[in-house]
């Protein structure tokens, strides 16, 4: 019991990193997702296939493999170390965010794509009829509707990303899972640490879940 109380401050401190990783990856991931979703719904075959294979590869391989390829794999390539890419790839922090962003980007692109695809044709025709050009149609009609459609599935993706950040502990980062593991391996008391760390994750999951519910209510039409 006292281990649970003792470890709480260390775990809460590490939670900051977890939250940072989650929010940053989701933030950048949205842009990546929208980008590839547009490519997928567009008419250009070449871009369509790029987007298709991007999504296929990043959703068909484990996140752990992606993190390792980016951190350990790219770190061994000589010319990368000499280039400007090294600014990002040198630090495990940015490597992790890069890997997480690419991964959530792929899943998000699927969510947005299906949201774009299911927009009622009638609404798009009405927009054309009103004389709105392509860009306006996109930003003023398609995007808002797609966002609203995506909310439930995207909420799920946010929770998956939160869990995904636990993999940062495999590349030296001391996030919530990393610190939890450290405490477990030095005190040999996994159950207590699991309960505390697990509860922190569940609280964050709960917050995300309710936040999405709130947005759904707010933006319903």
């Amino acid at each position, binding site marked *: 019991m006292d281990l649970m109380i003792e470890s709480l401050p260390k775990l809460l401190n590490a939670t900051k990193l977890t939250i940072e990783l989650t929010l940053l990856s989701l933030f950048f991931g949205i842009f990546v997702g929208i980008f590839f979703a547009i490519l997928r719904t567009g008419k250009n075959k070449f871009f369509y296939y790029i987007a298709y294979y991007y999504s296929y590869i990043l959703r068909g391989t484990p996140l*752990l*493999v*992606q993190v*390792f390829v980016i951190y350990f794999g*790219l770190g061994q390539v000589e010319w990368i170390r000499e280039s400007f890419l090294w600014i990002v790839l040198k630090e495990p922090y940015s490597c992790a965010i890069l890997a997480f962003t690419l991964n959530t980007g792929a899943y998000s692109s699927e969510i947005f794509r299906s949201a774009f695809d299911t927009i009622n044709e009638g609404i798009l025709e009405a927009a054309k009829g009103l004389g709105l050009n392509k860009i306006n149609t996109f930003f003023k009609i398609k995007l808002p509707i797609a966002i609203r459609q995506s909310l439930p599935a995207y909420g799920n993706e946010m929770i998956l990303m939160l869990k995904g950040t*636990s993999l940062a502990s495999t590349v030296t980062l001391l996030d919530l*899972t990393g610190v939890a*593991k450290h405490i477990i391996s030095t005190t040999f008391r*996994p159950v207590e640490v699991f309960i505390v*760390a697990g509860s922190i994750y569940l609280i964050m999951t709960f917050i995300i879940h309710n936040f999405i519910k709130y947005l759904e209510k707010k933006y319903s039409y």
Partner: protein
Amino acid sequence: MELLAYGETGWGDELFFATLMTLAVSSAAIIIGFFLAAIFASFKLSKIKTLNLIGSFYTTIFRGVPELLVIYLFFFGGSGAVMYVARIFGYDGYIEVNAFLTGAISIGIISGAYSTEVFRGAVQSIDKGQFEASEVLGIQKKIYYYKIIIPQMLRLALPNISNVWQITLKDTSLISVTGLVEIMRQSYIAAGYTRDPLFFYSFAAVLYLFLTFLSMKLFNKLEQHYNKGY
């Protein structure tokens, strides 16, 4: 390419066996998950509030907590837990709760949480008429569940089960932290020995894609088969 050669100098054979191991653990895990899902889905569908609650705890916890944490719980705690029970019976030695079991159980419990939701959703989406007709015909609950509801549920659940399988398959990569030699672990060993992480981790990605591809084909075939007559 010589790195992948079969035999003493190449890693081809090690990676081949590692792939089989990945399949073995994933299969074991998903089956464990199905057993758990059958239990907890029925809890969630039951009229007894306490059972509902227990079911919800299970799905919430094991879909909400990171897989690594669950794996560490069983890896560091597993042997200890099993041995604690054994000590009560007087056995004082080391019980090797081996990496395979630890891995299969941890991923199995997580997989089960997802499967529970799939089973529950599938049962709930079966036309209420089926239940009513069975009651009217006087068939007992146990029997009609087994002969009427479950076959239909399996058909409806199939697409989502294919998703759960993908998740389970990819989650097994995390068992590498416990030392079980599946794809990720073997790639880690090879990468360390040859100092060529880029090649081996990329190849690991290829292996997973291959397994994913095969799985999709398999599930498509299964869906076609079970959808006959609809």
